């Protein structure tokens, strides 16, 4: 079996199959499994800490004998048909030998360059040029920034002193600080000349679990990208996360001060003409969760959620919404028209129509969170192309018969689950993962 994508859906599929007794290749194109869930602070509707409940599953993947875990690995090509697919996988170099790295972090300590983290950059996330994706990463192996190897990070302060690296010139590097630090530890795990690895496997069935991405709105509307204190819900989640760049201190990006007024605007990206043409299901509960946590951090925070239709459809969701109300979170049926910034205080004024009152109102806040939806992961299109799978009009993997035969793609022996098939929450992903595992072992349609 081949499982593509190591988020919570892919992990669940791999564990189900492995426990059943089927050998599994679990492939993820990032350096660690965990996916979107590993970056979250809490999960609704219970406010369980996300990584707390996910990390044991990640360690289990590592431990299971019949799971071959291949991170930093892409599916290049698939030939054949069910039940005999020939798959070519390419493992991109991470420039650190997984079998030798102890995760001790001496390389990162030695690295002289700190850069903005891709994910958390806007809210102060930093990393070294050799880094680990997050503390609970599986595998617990560091990764060297490829650009650094070609002297392309000079602008960020790389290539100083003895740490001059240009891997286009030579092979066995003796001078890079990370290499030296690792060698000093007696490990020789940093291999700047590591090459990509081609792995050919034969599998009975393939499960696509490439997940979703958080929608990134264009700069401009609602002041996103223009005003510092306008964040997406994903950025706000990282801000709240004790394991995130601000170690859980909810602070305004503009001045690091504690916010007293926070508002959420729902359905960002679904406005007329905007690219998201469907309801992403989870954003209402994400905003509810974030507002509860903001209130738990500081009960005096004024939290307002501007929404249209509340999607509290799942088990325990409505109770969760009521819990937010009991915390004093205000839900306003409102259509935001515009957002202005006070250039001095960096506070934001939202102009909106309160539907219940039937009039236009203004609201000033310290942080504005845009509740953006879930869009197909970038790798979903890639994998669909490699596997010749049709996509639906939104860019998710198309199912053959969404009611009677859920999770089956147009190709026999290839199945889809989790966010690759559409917006979904964690619980549904895990249920689907169990269902798709049954499809994968039965191999039928």
């Amino acid at each position, binding site marked *: 079996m081949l499982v593509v994508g190591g988020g*919570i859906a892919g992990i669940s599929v791999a564990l*189900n199959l492995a*426990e*059943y*007794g089927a050998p599994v290749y679990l492939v993820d194109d990032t350096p660690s499994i965990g996916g979107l869930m590993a970056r979250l602070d809490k999960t609704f*509707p*219970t*406010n*369980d800490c996300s*990584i*707390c*409940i*996910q*990390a*044991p599953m990640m*360690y289990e993947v590592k*431990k299971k004998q019949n799971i071959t875990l291949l991170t930093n690995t892409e599916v290049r090509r698939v030939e054949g048909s069910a039940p005999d697919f020939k798959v070519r996988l390419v493992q991109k170099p991470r420039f650190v030998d997984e079998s030798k790295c*102890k995760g*001790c*972090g*001496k390389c990162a300590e030695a690295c002289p360059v700190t850069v903005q983290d891709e994910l958390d950059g806007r809210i102060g996330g930093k990393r070294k040029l050799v880094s680990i994706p997050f*503390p*609970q990463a599986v595998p*617990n192996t560091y990764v060297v920034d490829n650009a650094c190897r070609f002297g392309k990070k000079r602008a960020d302060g790389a290539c100083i002193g003895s740490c001059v690296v240009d891997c286009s010139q030579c092979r066995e590097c003796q001078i890079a600080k990370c290499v030296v630090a690792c060698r*000093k530890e*007696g490990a020789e795990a940093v291999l700047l000349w590591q090459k990509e690895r081609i792995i050919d496997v034969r599998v009975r069935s393939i499960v696509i679990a490439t997940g979703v991405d958080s929608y990134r709105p264009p700069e401009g509307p609602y002041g996103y990208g223009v005003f510092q204190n306008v964040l997406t819900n994903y950025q706000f989640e990282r801000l709240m996360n*004790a*394991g995130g760049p601000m*170690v*859980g201190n909810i602070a305004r990006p503009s001045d690091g001060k504690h916010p007293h007024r926070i508002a959420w605007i729902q359905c960002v990206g679904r406005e007329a003409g905007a690219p998201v*043409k*469907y309801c992403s299901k989870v954003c209402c509960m994400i905003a509810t969760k974030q507002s509860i946590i903001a209130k738990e951090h500081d009960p005096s925070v004024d939290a307002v959620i501007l929404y249209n*239709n*509340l*999607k*509290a*459809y*799942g*088990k*325990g969701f*409505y109770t969760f919404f009521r819990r937010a109300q009991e915390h004093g979170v205000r839900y306003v049926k409102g259509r935001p028209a515009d957002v202005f910034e006070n250039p001095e205080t960096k506070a934001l004024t939202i102009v909106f129509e309160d539907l*219940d009152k*039937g009039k236009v109102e203004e609201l000033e806040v310290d942080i504005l969170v845009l509740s953006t939806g879930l869009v197909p992961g970038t790798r979903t299109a890639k994998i669909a192309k490699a596997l010749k799978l049709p996509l639906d009009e939104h860019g998710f993997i198309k199912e053959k018969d*969404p*009611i*009677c035969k*859920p*999770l089956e793609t147009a190709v026999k022996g290839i199945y889809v689950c989790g966010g690759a098939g*559409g*917006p979904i929450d*964690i*619980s*549904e992903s*895990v*249920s689907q993962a*169990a*269902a798709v595992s*049954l499809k994968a*072992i*039965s191999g039928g349609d």
Partner: protein
Amino acid sequence: MAGQKAQGAGRKAQGKEQGAGREARGNEEGTRVKGRGDAGPSQSPAPCASSLAPSPLAPCTLRPAPCRIGVFVCDCGSNIAATVDVPAVVEDARKQAGVVHAEEGKWICSVDFLSRIQNAVKEQKLDRVVVACCTPRTHEPTFKATVKEAGLNPFLLEFVSIREQSSWVHKFDRPEATRVAKDLVKMGIAKARLLEPAECVRIPVGKEALVIGGGVSGMSAAVGLAEQGIKVVLVEKTDRLGGLLNGLDMLAPHTHSAEKLVSDLEQKVKGNPQIRLFLSTQVEDIKGYVGNYKVRISGQAEPFTISTIIAATGMEELRPSGFNYGAVPTVMTLLEFERKLKTGWNPGDVAFIGCVESRNEKRGCCNVGCMAGLQAASAVRTGFPQNKVGYFYPEISLEGTGVAAFEDAVRRHGLKLFRFADDAYPTVEKGAAGLIVTARDILSGPEVRFPANTVVLITGYKGTEEAPKLKGLLKVSSDNDGFFQEAHIKLRPLDFAAEGVYLCGCARSPKDVRTSIEEGMGAAMRALIPMNKGHVESEGIVSVIDLGNCSKCGLCAKVCPYNAIELVDKAPDVIQAICKGCGTCAAECPKDCIQIIHFTDEQIGAQVEEALKEDPGQKIVAFCCHWCALGAVDMAGVNRSEYPPNVRIIRVMCSGRVDAAWVRRALELKAAAVLIMGCEFPTCHYIDGNYKAEKRVERMIKSLGKKGLPADRIRTVWLSAADGPKFVATMKALAEELEL
């Protein structure tokens, strides 16, 4: 594993055999002391015994033969060695009773050193191994496998974390870091002396499943199982398969025929010889546990032997109150309306009212009402284009990618949509010609009066009537509406906490057809895992009950979250294969007659004693759960966060294991404080161990306070795995408060 024995009926036999073995060994040694508090220190022959006298504690196993312990301390390159004086730690360890070998290694997890450990085990005839290095969360499996290959039972390994708990967090204080490391290693050695071999316990699981409920979810589960060669007993209380779908016509949003879907699935069920279908049948009784259920159903004299059970009992519509429902026959629920519409009946002008008996203080959104209601409303307009249809709603909840087209279709059907405020439901009154529905439309503003011949109430749902009985039979829980409670709402949605029982579809909460089918298949997969493996197995850390002192109070069975303790004539009996080793039964037992293998009272007691041997007034003894709390400790390490070097962490699997006797002993030995560290609520790896721990600590504070002990020094902290900073802050605050 070589030591694993497959046992079925033999489980009890093995239990006895084990028990007998233990007895025999005890007798041989002649020193196995039962009862409370009579294992005083004077009786303890050095060096391998520990006792916690004078506290009343559990039986103490005393071994006459000195054990042969090997200690391996890691430099972790310079990660440990740069801060901790590793040679001093090794020397200190060498001096401890029972230690015959102590060694430093640069990377003790490297392949070379692992074989060095194995050679030492063989050559020096080591019977216990202590490794002091990083964290058990990542590296314990490696070392367990290593000693096992060398012929040692893996439970004779003790893991000490001196990187995360010392060198990484006391970087600027070499003497203190070294002292902490020495203490932790000595605590590990003290526990190691008392370690005993343990085996994984298995019970066989056959290939017979029971599926309760013949709706789409139950049928999907049954077919999924049968296609994998499982013999399925499918029980349906009514006289036909299909459940709720039987009343429906077309399924939104894809306009499939409900009838066709049901008949397709029905054919698969009836055409599969592996499935025995019982219509108009109820489950009468369920006894036993995974792999060995005896299930009696109505109309069958002989019980079935069943390995796993799937509850797919579905849901039913609530009975609405108000809106003249019951008084006027043309006011009806959605399902009543659908059934009638299917006969070709012309309902005249229709008003739909959404979210009846739902989205209130009692229950949430019904998940399916908007979709089904809009589908029915559109069907009226399609069938009777001249009829007017008014659709009153407080919210529309249609989600996912599939509904965009549906929304368009609804719009094209020319329904009149009126949105009312959450607290202002429409009223239904009898008018001259029919019914009048009145509401304020918040979208347009004015009050709307809509004359209708028929009013359809889109009503919420509850679990079916058989759910309460089943709840008792399966020993599972459900919410106020009779929907069953899963083991974990996010990550174990289709499992019950107890092994071998699963749930799916609307028995969990209201669902659409697609999700019900998915969950049916998913539950089938979950049930297939033990049936295909042929067994379930504990990981060795399990509960053991010594009935000698048992008062048969039954508390242990009551607190067990996994139904792993059966009461046989009131006497508790642990089904070890399904015990997860959380230890809440051991902590709860008022007679201290329950032990958890690898975390026995005396093993932990030995750690407490060792920790407080020197300078107890400077030390905080922390009982730390293996999951989130240890995760937070590890994270503080990974972040290199400095905190005062006063804490000595003793690992337990769950904070629910923490026994009052340990806390008492630590206070008697004059510890600066005792800290109980568990998972942040509501998360618990063992369902609710931390909640039980919290209550127990409250009781401990009261009872130990009464005994004159400084109960104000008992503290708790509940941490998520990302709470490294919170742990550090707690340690700092505690050290400051206690002036350490």
